[in-house]
């Protein structure tokens, strides 16, 4: 595809996005407005992540795309193919080999290392959105550090359900300042946000926002002293690789209620299986 610039976007647009990324890195957790472009895939399908990836990719990068932890889900395939065609970069499914990883809804199980960039696709970047629909109001609340409403919501959850009833997109506080939406990752992944060696970039295309966590940033999941945050997952080992420390997808395998649980991170599961680990459902 020679009719398009490297990684699709023109250099002026990339520069605009890089400025937003740098501003985001300088103010961790702050949502930087940026002039999101129409991309050749629909809004809501990763256009924010794609624009951030396009702005940070260089020809020598190795690119990995996951959706729900898997490299082979259709939208991950589609985005990976897009950058193969428009940037010609090397791609991989191995977490450790990738220099840029674009993700939707998961953080890889294998700890990331320095020099890697994790790019999140974000649908609704505003953690206060479902408490206050108006952007003009929520921006004001962030600037005044007015987060009481969020705490009231979490408190009401505890009164009603006995627990904080948020299981994904669980809000975090960054460096004691901004409350941030970690994108719809399961709260199981929240502890990985903190002190991560890799750069974490968040792109919301439709909502025109970019935010970022520089390496080794303090990220705390919101909670109460008597109701501490708890990362949770299905209480099973992986049926294929036997892992007990990974986030699991639940599969329905027959019509009489039979199910099995497997790692949502396909690379993690395959590496473990190749190393000889075997779950109870493995052939």
């Amino acid at each position, binding site marked *: 595809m020679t009719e398009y610039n490297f990684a*699709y976007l*023109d250099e002026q647009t990339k520069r605009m996005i890089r400025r937003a990324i740098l501003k985001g890195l300088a103010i961790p957790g702050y949502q930087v*407005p940026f*002039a*999101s*472009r*129409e*991309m050749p895939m*629909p*809004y*809501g*399908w990763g256009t924010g992540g794609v624009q951030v990836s396009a702005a940070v990719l260089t020809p020598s990068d190795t690119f990995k795309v996951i*959706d*729900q*932890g*898997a490299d*082979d*889900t*259709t*939208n*991950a*395939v*589609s985005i990976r*193919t897009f950058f193969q065609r428009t940037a010609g970069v090397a791609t991989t499914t191995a977490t450790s080999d990738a220099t840029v990883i674009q993700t939707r*809804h*998961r953080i890889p199980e294998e700890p990331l290392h320095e020099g890697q960039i994790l790019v999140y696709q974000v*649908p609704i970047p505003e953690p206060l959105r479902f408490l206050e*629909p*108006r*952007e*003009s109001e929520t921006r004001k609340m962030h600037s005044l550090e007015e987060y009481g409403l969020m705490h009231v919501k979490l408190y009401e959850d505890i009164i009603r*359900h*006995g*627990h904080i*009833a948020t*299981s*994904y997109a669980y809000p975090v506080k960054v460096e004691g300042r901004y409350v941030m939406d970690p994108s*719809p*990752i*399961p709260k*199981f992944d929240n502890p990985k946000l903190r002190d991560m060696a890799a750069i974490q970039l968040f792109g919301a295309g*439709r909502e*025109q926002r970019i935010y970022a966590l520089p390496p080794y940033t303090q990220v705390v999941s919101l909670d109460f002293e008597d109701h501490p945050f708890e990362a*949770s*997952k*299905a209480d099973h080992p992986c*049926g*294929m690789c036997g892992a007990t420390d990974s*986030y*699991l*997808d*639940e*599969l329905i395998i027959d019509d009489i209620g039979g199910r*099995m649980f*497997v790692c*949502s991170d396909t690379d993690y*599961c*395959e590496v473990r299986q190749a190393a000889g680990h075997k779950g109870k*459902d493995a*052939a």
Partner: protein
Amino acid sequence: MYVAVKGGERAIENAHAWLAEERRGNTDIAELSIAQIREQLSLAVNRVMAEGSLYDPDLAALAIKQARGDLIEAIFLIRAYRTTLPRFGASEPIDTGIMACDRRISATFKDLPGGQVLGPTFDYTHRLLDFKLAADGEVPKAPSRDAETGTVPHVTEFLNREGLIEEAPYDDAPPPDLTREPLEMPSTRALRLQALTRADEGFTLGLAYSTQRGYGRNHAFVGELRIGSVPVEIDIPELGFPVEIGEVILTECETVNQFTGSKTEPPQFTRGYGLVFGQTERKAISMALVDRALRWEELGEDNVGAPAQDAEFVLYHADNIQATGFLEHIKLPHYVDFQSELELVRKLRREAGAQQLQEAAE
């Protein structure tokens, strides 16, 4: 036996191949040409140009063909193409007063300079299926006469001369560009108008209709509706004067709306404004009504909480490419989020069950 799902790439390729075949349809039937779409489905082409924000009938026709007639999909194709185009400059403001009008009507004056010109309108057709068209689409030549020359003055100018309508605020500042700057609130009227002219026709129509039914009523008269071509000029710095680079067909609607006046200001009519690419009068009229409703604050009206008065609500939801993308993204896998919800609901139900058992025991 579970096997990790593989083959997404092949599934996508095969789906695309099937899609292409479906788009073509039965190959015993002649294929549509771009020129046929451009000439015979011109109102669809106009809508795609207007909401795609790109004036190019041939590309719009191509997009309609590629999108199998799904106009929102066609608009999406045009938007994605448009965003990659380099920008050489901005045109001079166009002058709709020198429009070569195909159609020009006023609902407020029976006759006026420039006259009432019905033009090619559906308005007084009887909506009876024309079965003759199914057999033979050829039509006799329509009667014609020489075009009027000279400018066609705007109806609102006549009202303005008497001070009966508010002065249109004059502003020479370059308008903001929401395709190059993030949308931020509060918005200026120029930005709102830019958002409305590319807004979804159905959404704009629904909002405009809601104002007529009392949700932010502003009682609009169509002061004037005109459709025709206007020259586009661009300033060439090396030459030092603007040069005409082409013509575009536009629909412009100016509404004359109620205003009760206040203690300091005598009663005056107010304005709503719509301007859209192509022959798109339903959209232009809708745009003018919504524009007027959004002006409640500057005109000192009450906010009655109507959707059409709420700029954040209107502007953040009017773009059909944003809306359709986000709406349809829920087709994408959400196994991970759903799994975490499953765990939570199971846990809450377990605890609720245990509590009920205990209460029963007590």
